[in-house]
């Protein structure tokens, strides 16, 4: 060291790599998945049926090939998902030969918790609490999620390996340092880790990767004539007979698609002509609004609502 500076080598010493941006992201995600499989006691991969989950599943199949992913997949079903999602989920699990667990908060179902009457409490009970119950039930010590840092501001602050205490709570002010590729997976009993292999991907990366790898995704992402209701400026799909209509609301046919998927009464579609992957990628690259605008639940409680829910154990 000279004057407190470590002596460095020159650029010319280094060999280059021929990998492009998507290949680098893919390799990074696979490295993370393999680290978890090698070091964590009981991992699980959260599967939400959305496009990010489809990419995660695809990466997991690649990461461990020719072995099947050495962990099960877990879907937290709120019972209000789009019907197409459930069909797609079951077909995918069968086709890929993976173990797919489903968890429903039966207490919530018994009490008739629904997105129309219960607002924020619905998300808490059927998603956050259901997830906590499921993780406790199986005793998973590490759970993969498809979260990306470009989605939302508190996610942008989160580590790839994100620690949760025995109450599944996140402490954003005291995150473990995460240096280079040296992930520290040590935990005490009762604690767990959420792992986000897609942290460094953007929405555009996801779509370009889906197109390049021909990854199957739910048809809801493609524009099609669908029966919808306009509510507070959002386009809501009337997916089944449980859809309630307010005064003056009526079901109409519109050519729409969805940028994100969740519970159908809480997910806004966009009017679009994009019915091919190429068209979707074009539309994504030109988008002026972030994808989160189509998730109604995230806007409850202002800009910090995601952090609040994460502190309480939301993914």
């Amino acid at each position, binding site marked *: 060291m000279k004057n407190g500076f470590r002596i460095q080598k020159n650029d010319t010493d280094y060999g280059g790599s021929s990998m492009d941006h998507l290949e680098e992201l893919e*390799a990074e995600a696979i490295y993370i998945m393999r680290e978890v499989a090698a070091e964590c006691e009981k991992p699980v991969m959260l599967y939400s049926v959305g496009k990010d989950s489809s990419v995660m599943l695809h990466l997991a199949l690649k990461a461990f090939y020719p072995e099947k992913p050495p962990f099960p997949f877990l879907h937290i079903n709120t019972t209000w998902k789009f019907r197409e999602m459930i069909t797609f989920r079951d077909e995918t699990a069968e086709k890929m030969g993976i173990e797919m667990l489903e968890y429903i908060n039966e207490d919530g179902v018994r009490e008739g918790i629904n997105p129309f009457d219960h607002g924020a409490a619905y998300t808490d009970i059927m998603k956050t609490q259901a997830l906590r119950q499921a993780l406790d039930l199986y005793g998973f010590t590490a759970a993969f999620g498809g979260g990306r840092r470009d989605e939302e*501001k508190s996610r942008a602050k989160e580590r790839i390996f994100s620690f949760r205490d025995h109450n599944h709570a996140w402490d954003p002010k005291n*995150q473990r*340092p995460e240096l280079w590729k040296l992930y520290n997976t040590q935990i005490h009993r009762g604690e767990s880790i959420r792992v986000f292999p897609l942290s460094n991907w953007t929405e555009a990366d996801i779509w370009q990767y889906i197109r390049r790898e021909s990854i199957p995704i739910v048809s809801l992402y493609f524009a099609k004539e669908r029966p919808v209701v306009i509510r507070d400026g959002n386009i809501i799909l009337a997916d089944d007979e449980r859809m309630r209509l307010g005064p003056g609301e009526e079901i109409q046919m519109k050519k729409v698609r969805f940028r994100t998927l969740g519970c159908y009464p809480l997910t806004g579609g966009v009017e679009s002509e994009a019915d091919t992957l190429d068209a979707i990628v074009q539309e994504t690259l030109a988008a002026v609004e972030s994808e989160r605008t189509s998730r109604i639940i995230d806007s409850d409680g202002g*800009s910090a609502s995601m952090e609040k829910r994460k502190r309480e154990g939301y993914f």
Partner: protein
Amino acid sequence: MEKDLLKFITCGSVDDGKSTLIGHMLYDAKLIFADQRRAMELDSGKGSADGRLDYSLLLDGLMAEREQGITIDVAYRYFTTRRRNFIVADTPGHEEYTRNMAVGASFASLCVILVDASQGVLMQTKRHARICALMGIRHFVFAVNKMDLVNYNQKKFEKIRKDVRVLMAEADGVQVQLIPVSATEGDNITEKSVRMPWYGGPALLPYLETVETGEPCGGRGFSMAVQRVCRPNRLFRGFQGQPASGSLAVGDILTVLPGGQKAAVAEILNGDKSVERCEKGQAVTIRLATETDVSRGCVLGKDTTLKTGSMLAAYLLWMDDKNLVAGRNFRMKLGTQTVPATVMKIRHRVDVNTGAEVSAETIYKNEIAFCEISMGSRVVFDTFAESREHGSLILMDRLSNMTCACGVVEQEIVRENNLTWHEMDITRELRESQMGQKAFTVWMTGLSGAGKSTIANEVEKRLFAMGKHTMILDGDNVRMGLNKNLGFGEEDRIENIRRIAQVAKLMNDAGLIVLAASISPYRPDRRMAREIIGENFTEVYVSTPLAECERRDTKGLYKAARAGEIAEFTGISGVYEVPESPDIVIDTTGRSVEECAGLLLAGIEKYL
């Protein structure tokens, strides 16, 4: 055309305007979504009196950050211009959160260090510059900010340029660029400012779009740390990992480190596709032509400068609230290897302000120190200058599990170089045949009072009756003699186990059967014992539960521990790491000594 990716960080002292700079850059370059812009415009109205836009709100995402108006942790932002993809890590300026700044620095290839034009180069500016260099960044941009507050005065800028030149004078192989900017007013951010005609260089964003940074150092030859072994069936055994350097083709001969065995490459998979060759950075699976002993932590190499050893010297950035003193023991992760490690010696501390090497006995949070580290087993590594991946490490606290330091390897320390192993004529095999037995070690682990010594005693009596030559190494007894100078801190516990294992090994070499009874609470220590003793090793877990041990409390130790009279007593205030796959498990609850001895003897029958 495929655009490349630049990962960079912003750092510098608190209130130098890092978040504002990036926020303004994204805003001016129209790189934010409409809803994010609306939210910022709305939130700015809430906070500031004069209704000006607060660009930092685009980045400071945590509630505590917005409340206190500071950055606590790294925020990652992703944006794309016509020329390049960018990931920027906006890091905190407070000294308190230096470790979060280091997190950002470890991932970046370029840093933008902000300097307040009205304040000049501060201690925190210097600290961040030194940490960036330590973490391997070679491209430095000093953005001299708040030029609007000094009336865009060239003299102020030149004064800072001089100070930066002095600061960076000793930093070899580093490229330095200074740019005068105003983050709030937007001068020299996305385009050149008309208010500083005296500045002839580029504005910040155009500079970032065109600067050539090269790639981080991967090292010479081909190298890959094995992450995991893939065994879908009896026929396939592949080693998975991400090569740190070089390229490899089917048919090439690899060396497996630390063992040194050589094997030819039979097959390479890139993801799920069979390929003829692979290279640095890809997620691959390698199958070897011959059955070779390879597990996680091994490194597959070809023509590398990799070293194998149990001691190295490294610069550490200390990040824990608990201070570092020589003798502290940790778990160390280097590549995919996790081993026990002890900081043997603090050679000196680096003064972040002056760069001077200062002698120090204690290292406090956020300080840089040059240390000697001894590892519990042989580790494959390289210097950080040769290889980023094989030359970087973290230290983890054994109790809190926190990552308490990160470090870069400066050199290997070779200790046993002037010693050579003498092969003697009377070998272990000869001694064994003369005694008419096979030498082996039974390693008994379990809580205090679990019954280890009692069982060992009974087993030895029976072996003696069978005409076998035996010896018991009892933990307590050894501590009264050979290990009298050792305490119960983690470092001493490791040394205690190491000596017992070495003695057991000597006795085995003398042809004796050894029964070692010791609490040996840590898995890595028991692994070390197994490695020292070698093949003929049987691990016996005396699994008597804590409640039962405490009820017996033959030595009165549990009572004393509960009363707080014994610090770090295994099971009470110290951890016991249960064996993952012991060869024999004996729970003494409700069993007679004879019964337990019978169980043990049945388990070692193959040696008798």
